[in-house]
């Protein structure tokens, strides 16, 4: 799976979870940039990503993800 496909899929999930079709992610986007992005929405994002890419996160891997870029890298590593 290409990086672009992962990016597009993750961005789509962000738009759905935060109900904002105009939301544009960058690798540098953090929870500070999206008002509703709290720990619960973080879990909702991760669960939706797991489902979309048929992967399974470990809690310790996702506890300290600093930004979207780290999230994308993790998805790429797990999705192959």
């Amino acid at each position: 799976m290409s990086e672009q496909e992962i990016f597009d899929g993750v961005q789509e999930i962000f738009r759905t979870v935060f109900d904002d079709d105009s939301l544009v992610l960058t690798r540098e986007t953090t929870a500070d940039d999206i008002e509703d992005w709290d720990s619960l929405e973080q879990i909702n994002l991760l669960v939706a990503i797991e489902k979309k890419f048929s992967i399974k996160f470990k809690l310790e891997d996702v506890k300290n993800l600093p930004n979207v870029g780290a999230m994308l890298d993790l998805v790429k590593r797990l999705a192959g």
Partner: protein
Amino acid sequence: MPYTYLITGATSDVGAALIRRVWKPGDIILAQGAGDLERLEPLRALCGDSLHLFDVDLTKEAPLSDFIETIRREFGAPTHIVHLPALRVINTKFRNFDEQRFLLDFNVQVMSALRICKAFLPAMMKAKFGRVLFMLTDYLIGVPPKNTTAYIVAKNALRGLARSLATEAAPAGVTVNCVAPYMMETRFLTDTPDLIVEASAAANPMGRNARVEDVVPAMAFLLSDEAGFISGAELPITGGARY
């Protein structure tokens, strides 16, 4: 004195464990499930003929009415009512609130408890003894989590029922209590992603979710003779997470 336990949602992990915990020879267990009564068959080895199983769809009014009538006709009023059932929690934003499903859950959680209590509480009060116990959730303690509106509304209604009945039944020596456990690792979580279950465990001060064996002894206590002066309580079983 032998007791008659009417337990709705008895086929849950908590229900089955509670029967094991409280049953003693002479007691009668009236256990309701919905399409899953086989889960209670192993209890026959313990309870024998005193275990009576009822397959009742609590989402609908007619089967519940038939159930209540059968109990009334064949067993009379129970001494203990334990109400456990709920549909699975749907985690969704309020804009996606599904009214139809909410009403089904409301029937299961609230209306069935209300009708069962309406049918039997007066007789329990006349007998000057009784225990009623409802299953709540620690989501009701403090600020509720986001995206669980349907569950929170139904559980709050159930809490309101418990509190009202506790006030009314106390002079007759009938207690009405609730337990409010932290996320419990049971079959109820079948549809809940592992990540959510793990995150919940990690967020608990004791580093884990609740287990059936944390909750059932507390329930057994609230149902016991010794707990006769405790009514209107909502007991948090949360490992210190909420209280």
